[in-house]
Structure formats: structure tokens, C-alpha cells
């Protein structure tokens, strides 16, 4: 957990609007995306934001469409807060944090219809493509939601369909077709934190531990908001929320530029 001596220091700095690594309140750490980090995935990517590193792999399988959407495919997002990535994570079943993260990432992709779900339909009412998006934290130094959402979209941009034989209903994972997954929008999650009344983005682990509240806003390239999630103990005023949305609109455009 956070060391007591840095606690007072970070809080003191927040009051003055500065940060211990010298960043501005609305500046992200360096963002890097590596593609194709695992070749058995249909698409994969690793995102590093400062010392935080999240990897994502996309696997495709077939399934039966949901009765209410017979002409659409679907996505499943899962996140593993692996204990290799932080002394604060314990081995075991996914906890509430990892489930929340997966669901926030899921909603951003689902609600923006980033993937053209209609094109994932193989046969109406019978067969569809299921897009399994698996996130693994490799090093936790704060801001996992933004890193994970970016890793998911990055991996999706690279995903290709495996060869599928409709007659026998079998997938050959060793052969991939040239056509990519139909990705039509690129939702980006931007999380705004509040500490001592100051709004800021991209917290380190220590800053995040002292954050009073957070608001994740997922924005597509046309500036529409697709998902939001408020977290943390403290409340946010209407002004703070509107300011947060404004920050997210600007920052998401900057972050999206890192996508290839």
C-alpha cells in the first residue's frame, strides 16, 4: 500500500495543483502500444502508460445468437488482476475491481457499437461470432481502466477471423482469413480523478490510492459519449462532472492518436 510519508506530500502537492513526477494535472504519462504480442490470439496488443502495463488478446469462437438479437454477434470482456503485476493483488477468483473494469470496458465497446455486431452474424438465429476480449494486468501503477480500454481497442484493430467451415461447424485456428474484424468506431476511456478538490487524469498507483472519486468517460471519435462510470467514495458536483466530460472529450482524442 501507499507509504505514509508520501501520502501527505502528494496531498499537499494536489492542493497546489502539482504532482510529484512533475506532470501537469491533465497530462498522461507516456503511452505506448505494441501490437501482436501473442500469435495464437486473433488479435493482441500491450499498452503501457508510464509503468502501468496491460495486455489484451482477442479470441473468436462461434455460438448461438441471443434470442433478442438473432442477427448479431456478441462480445465478452474479462479482466485478470494477476498477482504477478502488483504486491496488492492476491491469487484467486476475480474480485469486484476486476469485474468492474471488465464491465466498463465492455460497455464502451458494446454501446458505441465499435464492432459491427451485424457483421458477426453467420446465420440468423443460429450461428454468430463471439468476440472474447481477455485483459491481463502485467504491471499495476494506476489508471488500469484507461490502459485496459485502450489495449482492448488496439487488439481489436488487429483481430482477423480464423477459417470457419460452416458445413462441419469447425474453426481452424491455424489459418486466418485476410478480413479483419469489422471495427467501425474507436471508443477511448478517459478517467478523471478528484483529490483534495483538484481534478486530474492518469494517476500513478500512489495518487490513485489517495483519490477521493473518479469518473470514467468513454468517448468515440465523433465526440459522443458511450459509457460512464463514477467510482470512489466522494461525490462529484454537476460542475465537476461537466468539467470531467470536457476533459475526457479532449484527452480521448489525444489518446486515440496512439492507435495505428
Amino acid at each position, binding site marked *: 500500500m501507499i507509504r505514509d510519508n508520501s501520502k501527505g506530500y502528494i496531498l499537499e502537492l494536489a492542493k497546489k495543483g502539482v504532482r510529484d513526477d512533475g506532470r501537469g494535472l491533465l497530462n498522461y504519462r507516456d503511452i505506448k502500444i505494441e501490437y501482436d*504480442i*501473442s*500469435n*495464437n*490470439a*486473433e488479435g*493482441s496488443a500491450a499498452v503501457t502508460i508510464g*509503468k502501468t*502495463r496491460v*495486455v489484451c*488478446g*482477442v*479470441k473468436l*469462437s462461434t455460438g448461438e445468437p441471443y434470442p433478442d438479437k438473432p442477427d448479431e454477434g456478441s462480445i465478452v470482456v*474479462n479482466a*485478470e488482476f*494477476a*498477482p*504477478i*503485476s*502488483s*504486491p496488492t493483488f*492476491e*491469487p484467486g*477468483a*476475480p474480485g469486484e475491481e476486476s469485474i468492474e473494469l471488465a464491465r466498463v470496458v465492455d460497455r464502451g465497446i458494446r454501446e458505441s457499437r465499435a464492432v459491427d455486431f451485424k457483421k458477426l452474424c453467420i446465420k440468423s438465429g443460429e450461428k454468430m461470432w463471439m468476440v*472474447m476480449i*481477455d485483459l*491481463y494486468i*502485467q*504491471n*499495476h*501503477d494506476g489508471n488500469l481502466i484507461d490502459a485496459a480500454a485502450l489495449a482492448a481497442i488496439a487488439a481489436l484493430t488487429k483481430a482477423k477471423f480464423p477459417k470457419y467451415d460452416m458445413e462441419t461447424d469447425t474453426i481452424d*485456428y*491455424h489459418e486466418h482469413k485476410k478480413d479483419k474484424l469489422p471495427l467501425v468506431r474507436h471508443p477511448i476511456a478517459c478517467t478523471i480523478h478528484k483529490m483534495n478538490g483538484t481534478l486530474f487524469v492518469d494517476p500513478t498507483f500512489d495518487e490513485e490510492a489517495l483519490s477521493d472519486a473518479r469518473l470514467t468517460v468513454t468517448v468515440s471519435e465523433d465526440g459522443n459519449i458511450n459509457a460512464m462510470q463514477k467510482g470512489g467514495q466522494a461525490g462529484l458536483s454537476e460542475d465537476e462532472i461537466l468539467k470531467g466530460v470536457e476533459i475526457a472529450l479532449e484527452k480521448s482524442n489525444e489518446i486515440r492518436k496512439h492507435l495505428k
Partner: protein
Amino acid sequence: MKRPDGRKPEDLRPMEAKVGVIENATGSAMFRIGNTIAIAGVYGPREMHPKRLEDPEKSVIKCYYDMYSFSVPERKRPGPDRRSIELSMVIRNALEPAILTKEFPKSGIDIFVSIIQADAGTRCAAITAASMALADAGIPMKDLVCAVACGNVRDTAVADLNKEEEDVELTTDIPIAYMPRAKKITLLQADGDLTAERFKEALKLGIQGCEQIYELQKKALREKYQVSGEMIEDKD
């Protein structure tokens, strides 16, 4: 005999090793052999959790082997299964003989290994990576532990089977782990069907392979610490 990827029986696949890949871990390393990639992170020695498992004589080693869901062609359900629980145990048993656990009584050392990409030999890659991670964590050890599979494919003894070879009918897969200085084998498993003579040949290739991996491990560790080494010399 030519192997599917053109190697000679004794040849290992191309390898890569890097020390220091997970910032938060006390020690960490990546090891790639062919298309198999493992990363290992070590935390500790740290306070033992839960406390009742504490040993007044020595540090308690725990090991967790985990395969990424997308590391294999058909998605694997995330989280532990029976296979990963067994592998976690044999990996711990392979590493523990090298660790001077009595140096840190009452503490715990946790070893986590993730398989990012799998093409056979993942438990061996896990051991090789974990051993470097332990050294990187500064945990006193008698020796590094190196591991590779050997076996019998199409009636020929080979080292470092890939998935294609592993899937050939009647293949015997023999993962081994080895401490090169002590010349001790700390992991040995086998499944298949082979003569004692062929086993002897295969084991020899396996040990040779481990010795090559040992050199790469030492090189990767030196690469990380070379910079600080130069700084010390400069002061003198």
C-alpha cells in the same frame, strides 16, 4: 532425420531472455523459446500470508503457473485448472532445491509465471524464466535452474519438442529441469512409450540443452546488471 522446422535432433529453437520486465516485482524475467513465451515475477521474501503457514526454519515458496486465455489456439478459460495446479507444484519443486530458503525464516517467496504464447514446453520455459527472476530478486541461490523438454519423436531422440512434434503419434515428451553446477535434475516427467536406451539418449540431449540455456540465462542477468557494474568500477 529432419524435424518439421528443419532442426537437427539436438537443436533448441531460437531463444531470447530478458531480465527485469515487471517493474513492481522484486525480480522478473522473460524467456522465449521458439513460439513459447513465459514471463515470471517474484515477490519477496515478504511477510507470509496466511501467517499460520509461516515456517520458523525457512522461507515458504509458493508458485503459480498461469496460461493466458489467448496463448493457445482454442481459448482457455482464464484462471487455474487441474493442469495448472499440478504444473505450479512441479515448477516449485524444480526451483526450490536451488533456493537457500533458510536465509529468510518466517517469510514467503511468491513466484508467478504467465504463459503469453504457447507452443509446447511451457513448464520448462516457466522454470527457466522463474529461475532468472529469483536471481534478479537477489534471492540467494546455489545455482540457476534451466529447463527444456527432450523426448522421442518418430523413433529419434530430440531436444526441445515443439507443438507439432508433441502431437505426433507415439511421441514421448520428457520435460526436465537441471542445476548445471550441481549436475542435479530437479524436474523429470514423461508421457509416452519408449525404450530405456532411447530415454538415455533423450536425457543426454535434454541436459545438453539445459547447459545452453544456462549460458543464455547468465548472459541475460549480466546484461541487466552490467550498467551498475561499470558504475562501481568507475568509482575505483
